[in-house]
């Protein structure tokens, strides 16, 4: 055993408190080997899950999948990448009420200063909904919107999920928006069988 490691093991005189388990590990050769193994696994997980789509990524990621999922180290840095969106797609809902009136519901947003620290999560959800491709998301979203309306004392008969699409052009005025309905959720009255 090296002198250095021996000196690490000795409780230093005047040391003001007892060592933690982590400290004891850091001070022993076996402990360091254990921590080093952990470091290698964490680095492997972080590095392989940030590899671009490639054969190397496909071969290495399965080995670290369990670690990444368990440790919450999954991450994605494709922010505005590979390209920012070329059109602005807003997720909305058209709500029809029993009295025949209708209203356009929009994703909740706050003010630009403090509101931006809570509404970005709604905007993220709206962005995913606006992709309009995962049908499993539609029913819970429509039901939730209907419940909010009912809780506010209104009486909705249907919630229609819709997208508003505006192409983005640089240095020119924005084009006219196009609306696309993609899901209709009939709202059951009290005592009716729920549908949708």
């Amino acid at each position, binding site marked *: 055993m090296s002198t250095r490691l021996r000196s690490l093991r000795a409780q230093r005189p005047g040391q003001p408190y007892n060592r933690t388990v982590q400290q004891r590990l850091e001070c022993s050769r076996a402990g360091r080997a254990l921590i080093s193994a952990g*470091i290698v696994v964490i680095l492997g997980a972080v590095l392989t899950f*940030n590899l671009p789509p490639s054969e190397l990524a496909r071969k290495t990621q399965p080995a670290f999948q369990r670690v990444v999922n368990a440790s919450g180290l999954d991450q994605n840095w494709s922010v505005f990448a590979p390209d*920012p969106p070329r059109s602005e797609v807003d997720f909305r809902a058209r709500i029809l009420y029993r009295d025949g009136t209708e209203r356009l519901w929009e994703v909740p947003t706050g003010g630009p200063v403090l509101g931006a620290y809570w509404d970005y999560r709604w905007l993220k959800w709206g962005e995913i909904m606006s992709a309009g491709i995962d049908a499993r998301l539609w029913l819970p979203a429509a039901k939730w919107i209907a419940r909010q309306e009912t809780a506010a004392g209104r009486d909705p008969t249907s919630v229609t999920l819709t997208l508003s699409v505006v192409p983005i052009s640089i240095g020119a005025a924005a084009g006219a928006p196009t609306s696309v309905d993609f899901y209709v959720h009939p709202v059951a009255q009290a005592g009716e069988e729920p549908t949708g």
Partner: protein
Amino acid sequence: MRKALASWNRFWFAAQSTSTAAVVRIAGGLVLFGWAATIGRDVLSFFGPDGIFEGPDYKTSGLKGIWSVLGPTPSATVVVAVYVALLAGSMCLVVGFHSRLAALVVFVALVSFTRRNPLVLNSGDALLRVISFFLLLLPGGEALSVDRWRRARKGTGAFWEFPARAVWPLRLMQIQLSVAYMAAVWAKVGGGTWREGSAVAYALRVGFLRRLPLPEVVSGSLLVSNVLSYATLAIELALGLLVWNRRLRPRVLLVGVAFHLAIDYAFRVGFFSYAMFVLYLAFIPADTMDAWLSGGRQRLARRKGQRSGNNSDSDGAADNEVSTSPDDDVPEGTGSVVAVGDPSPGRGP
């Protein structure tokens, strides 16, 4: 082989003052507390049983290693309990009360919320979850904490001291930062708009992401977009690589701070920039942090002295510099002590 092993040990296990670790813990706790506080109004809508998303059942999904204390359809009571634990845990991280346990609570809550509904979380939120994992490994409660203050009250050490500890958790945070920027650059250069320089103009025109107003010349000019798009790539590349150069690091990090403040101004991206700043702190050398804290403590002491009408340094801190334990041949990973300001034991905050 022996040389490689020595280099490995030096890089991961060199002992350094825990001042940087403590500041990372406090900053991470503050950002996590802000994150938790701002999600409170929506916690049931996002994660509750009647929320906007029916969570996946990971037990039957075949995905390995996934876990959550919430499950696919948690009761409102469980969701609120996990939320309150997150709020309390993040506050405990800030003040350093049972720091390791607090980090564990925050980590469990964040992973659970993420698995329950990943649709409402962006890359910055994912980074906060990653940071919470690293905080779990970090000896951040060793200094500037209620834990340290309680030890000082018991007479085992002083509040203003920073035990030297192995640096590996901070190293992992540093590498995470570098990898994130490199991955971001790699993802961008694959896109035509980044290569032709129009990407920032497109990004700034996404209405729902816009935050505070920008002059038309910034958001509407292709020329300005060219400059900003290429600058973005250059800055991210520099942050990924040059941050490892000791001489360039302060400048690179300052540019990074300006870059992320600009992002925070222009876009509704929540806590993304602040999460990045927490990782930036991991790059501040411990001796620099010691000096900053010492300076801050001396200023505080002077102000306190002036307030009490006594300009002499009544708590004895003002004239003290950072001092280290006599054993400068610091054995890696042990509890040698760096004291900031007055090194006398038993002094409270």
